[in-house]
């Protein structure tokens, strides 16, 4: 009984710590990029709780600022993906027929694109108004543009399942318009899958941002990103374990936290028993 909920609860607590440090980073750690050549690659100590990197920068400070990037990119990416994917999924699921076919083919086409090229294109070809946005937001736009297919697929499936239900038939018999049925009847009943895909989208985006930054095409240095920190750690593998351990742990907790949140939302909102 209790054990079943322990995992999600732990995840939420750890996740909350990361979220708080993300919000408070500018006050807790005002100088994530301060270079201290006197203490390069210093192991964890009372001065530097999680040690320093190859330039003598404080790992804990950079970790806290990396949390801003990771969580920010996660949330914005998931929202961008939802804004693109949900309307398409709604149209496909509700209208069916030609609309469904068109959206399904669009999803297949989206899966054929090399994601890396699309991300690079959005990052470097952005129109001026987009280019003025900070790195994190542009990266989120790119990742969101790549990741809209799951939300479209889930909402489509949910609408297909719901629209033959009695409430919907009753609303239609009462003369409700298509738009009204979608907005007033179908969307509220689909809240669980919508929130769940947003949370899972944020978790995938956190991994995606770290991966892009790891290979050097994501957040540009010196802005701290966990992926870039892990790339740095690769150069000091075997000598400075703290460089690899803490950013990886933070990323793990964040992704696990988003997933735990998604599970929690599903259990809370969805009255259907999960395990039959």
């Amino acid at each position, binding site marked *: 009984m209790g*054990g079943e909920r322990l995992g999600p609860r732990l995840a939420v607590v750890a996740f909350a710590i990361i979220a708080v440090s993300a919000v408070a980073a500018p006050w807790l750690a005002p100088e994530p990029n301060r270079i201290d050549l006197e203490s390069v690659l210093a192991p964890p100590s009372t001065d530097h709780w999680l040690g320093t990197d190859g330039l003598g920068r404080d790992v804990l400070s950079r970790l806290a600022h990396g949390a801003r990037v990771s969580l920010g990119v996660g949330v914005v990416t998931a929202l961008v993906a939802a804004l693109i994917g949900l309307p398409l999924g709604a149209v496909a699921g509700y209208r069916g027929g030609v609309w469904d076919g068109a959206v399904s083919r669009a999803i297949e086409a989206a*899966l054929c694109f090399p994601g890396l*090229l699309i991300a690079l294109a959005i990052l470097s070809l952005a129109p001026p108004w987009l280019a003025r946005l900070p790195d994190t937001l542009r990266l989120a736009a790119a990742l969101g543009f790549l990741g809209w297919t799951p939300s479209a697929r889930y909402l489509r499936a949910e609408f297909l399942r719901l629209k033959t239900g009695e409430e919907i038939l009753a609303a239609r018999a009462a003369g409700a318009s298509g738009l009204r049925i979608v907005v007033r009847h179908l969307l509220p009943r689909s809240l669980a899958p919508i929130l769940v895909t947003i949370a899972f989208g944020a978790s995938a985006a956190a991994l995606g941002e770290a991966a892009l930054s790891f290979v050097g095409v994501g957040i540009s240095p010196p802005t701290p990103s966990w992926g870039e920190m892990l790339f740095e750690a690769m150069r000091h*593998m075997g000598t400075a*374990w703290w460089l690899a351990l803490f950013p990886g742990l933070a990323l793990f907790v964040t992704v*696990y936290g988003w997933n735990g949140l998604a599970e929690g939302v599903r259990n809370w909102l969805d009255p259907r028993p999960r395990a039959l």
Partner: protein
Amino acid sequence: MTAAARRLVTAAVTLVLVTLIVFALLVALPGDASGDDETARRLPDEYRAALRAQYHLDDPLAIRYARWIGDVARGDIGASLREHRPVAAILRERLPASLALNGAALAVVIMIATPLGIGAAWKPGSSLDRAGLAATTALYAVPVFWMALLLQWLFAVRLGWLPLFGIEGDERAGGSLARTADIFRHLVLPVTCLSYGSLAYVSRFVRTALVDAAAGDGGRPARARGATALRYVTVHGTRQAAVPLLTLAGFLIPRLVGGSLLVEEIFNVPGLGSLLFDSVLGRDVPVVLALTLLSGTVTLAAITGADLLAAWADPRVRHGR
């Protein structure tokens, strides 16, 4: 049959559109294959002009794309702008490593996730179900490059059991058995990194498909008649669950030819993922287009094939309702 033919035509049109957009984006990115801004300062103008003429980089975009797709229709996918040799030869070199890596990873995922999913579906809510769920969910959250660093550090640096990276050792003199064993040793860490993250998704998919099937009209009577766990799952469950499992296959098969950039970079495996990465950054248009065409064809073939097979596996569809 007309439905299948229509899907084939749609798939072909999709591929043309996708390659057209990829081509347009690649050309629109700053820099081209005759050198980026940095090398441009070092190369004489005449030399760069000659390169641009040789690659037809100054022709209108529509003509360049039309020339490419015409060549493809005749079976010629062009030559690399960076390596100055046929793209087909480069793909032939890179494909085996990608297939070996992704194929082995896919096999590992299926061999571990399917029993997990079946076990979980047999008694939903049991401790096996919950433990499998917790473990695979946790694994999904472990970033692959972090896992790669830890495994490299532990098994290659500290213990020295496995090679740090690469796909083959230097000692190629040994027999074919020794060579196979050598490649196998090189693949252990990359395959591990490539497979653990998918366990959650695949085992859950199998579990859900089987639970839904068991709750359906076919499953309950079978259980009521006292079918054993194995028989129930293999005979009744999988047949009922054929449609979702085919869908799953449609999404997993395309991974064979892509999706392993990080692992290839970290373990220095000469596969298609790192080729795409280098070619996009180097603006090597023919190679990027060929890779898009390859992965796009496999993706569409797998999804469309799964769709058509699923329609056929459903007796209501097969017998015209």
